[in-house]
């Protein structure tokens, strides 16, 4: 074996146990490998006080977590169930004032993670000026482009975004190998998340025997084990969301969730079925 070390998969519940109150957890959008399996384990553990960063949006995952009372804070460019409409538990929590919501915009999330990826304290970003998003972000700074040509008769204002360093990046992927390398394909926001975060924990459809780094073709879409702290096997772990190239979203199940979660009682009943047996929630 040429590789540095083998990574033993852990039980899903052990993986969820790493996600402790107060930690900032980065999660991907609905189309990019959401670990619904880990979401379920978190809810089952009764997790509370978690802080989430949606990279850059979230859907059913954050709605379940909010409804189950796991979430203290959320930063996101949007929360939506997409074709199924508004995210009902998110919307209810905003009205109730029960979570702290920080609105952002997609490229600001990417840039702030890239700042951590590069170990710089901030990144400049165009746009934003004149948006009320900026007005509600005291952590963002309006700065000046220092490269305005001498003699230019005005300054060039630009927003400086502080780096975001998540404690944990959490996602679901099609496969990992026995060394802990994880296939992400073209979902490279997962790579940026992992580089930016202190730790990355992943659920996967399956563990494969051949190293994903052994040839150029599979290596191109692989997040190296170097960034990965723990892996759990969770077949169909994105369900009812889909996983690119593996299975499509279960639109009936998503519609069922959207309908049920319109009321607190409906959500609770859905959650009981979901915890009891995930597929029963459909």
């Amino acid at each position, binding site marked *: 074996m040429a590789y540095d070390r083998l990574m033993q998969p852990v039980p899903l519940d052990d993986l969820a146990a790493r996600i402790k109150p107060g930690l900032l957890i980065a999660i991907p*959008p609905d*189309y*990019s490998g959401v670990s619904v399996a880990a979401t379920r384990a978190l809810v089952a553990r009764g997790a509370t006080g978690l802080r989430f960063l949606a*990279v*850059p*949006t979230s859907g059913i995952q954050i709605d379940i977590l909010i409804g189950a009372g796991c979430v203290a804070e959320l930063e*996101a*460019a*949007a*929360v*939506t169930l*997409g*074709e199924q409409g*508004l*995210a009902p538990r*998110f*919307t209810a929590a*905003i*009205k*109730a*004032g029960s979570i702290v*919501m920080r*609105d*952002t*915009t*997609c*490229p*600001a999330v*990417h840039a702030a993670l*890239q700042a951590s990826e590069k170990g710089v304290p901030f990144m400049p*970003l*165009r*746009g*934003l*000026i*004149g*948006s*009320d*998003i*900026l007005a*509600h972000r005291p952590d963002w700074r309006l700065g000046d482009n220092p490269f305005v040509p001498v003699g230019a008769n*005005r*300054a*060039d*204002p*630009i927003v400086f975004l502080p780096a975001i360093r998540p404690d944990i990046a959490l996602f679901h992927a099609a496969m990992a190998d026995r060394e802990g390398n994880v296939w992400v394909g*073209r*979902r*490279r*926001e*997962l*790579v*940026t998340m992992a580089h930016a975060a202190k730790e990355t924990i992943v659920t996967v459809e399956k563990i494969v025997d051949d190293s994903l780094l052994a040839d150029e073709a599979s290596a191109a879409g692989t997040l190296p084990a170097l960034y990965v702290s723990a892996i759990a096997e969770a077949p169909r772990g994105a369900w009812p969301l889909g996983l690119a190239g593996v299975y499509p979203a279960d639109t009936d199940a998503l519609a069922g969730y959207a309908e049920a979660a319109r009321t607190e009682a409906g959500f609770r009943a859905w959650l009981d079925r979901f915890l009891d047996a995930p597929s029963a929630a459909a």
Partner: protein
Amino acid sequence: MDIARTELLIAAIARLLDGCRTIAIGNSSPIPGSAALLLRARTGGATRVLMLGSVKHNAFTDGARELFDCAAQGRIDAFFLGGGQIDGEANINLVGVGEHPRWQQRFPGSFGSAYLYYLIPRVILFREEHTPRVLVPKVDFVSAPGISPPEVYRRGGPAALVTGRCVFDFDRDRRRFRLASIHPGETADSIRVHTGFDYDAPADVPVTPPPEPRDLDLLRGRVAGEIAETYPRFARELFGAARISAAE
């Protein structure tokens, strides 16, 4: 779904895209997506369409940031934005009605609007619902402003607003919308009644023309099959299952 109306909207939007080489389409945008694919079909493939959610019409391979980087590089000519509220200066609100942070009505959020609206030359606002509830005098929250002061770096912005009732052009110098055409069945007065903001209007307002027969053929043929990949339900309702499978 009002089929004739939806096809009219698609044709009206396609007209606004004329001359664009690269058009990006965000999530949940079947009508703009159909319009872009119609233009592409009409140009024999010379127009490039980058449609999020599609596998066949999405060339991005650098993750979720690539759309934004690509726009910042100046490679995208046109894009679409909507709004829970849109006001007469083309400010859009995708966050909420009422007051921050406990909104009376909370929308999903701003997505990439606070960036793309500044950088993509031709942004077309599209919202089917045309009521004073949506088209307001002043948005409650500016997700992205229609206009920026001269010192702010801005290469792009609003070009037009397409609703279920009409097409507005946006005049960036006058910072106002101007009624460009009204869809069949509407009048200058009916538009005025249903619009919460003030806008310019010519004495004679043309009627939004229906799709050309050739466009209708392309739409119901090639485009029906192409849009079905990303929006199967929309395509089924608009074009019927038979057309889609024939086109595929």
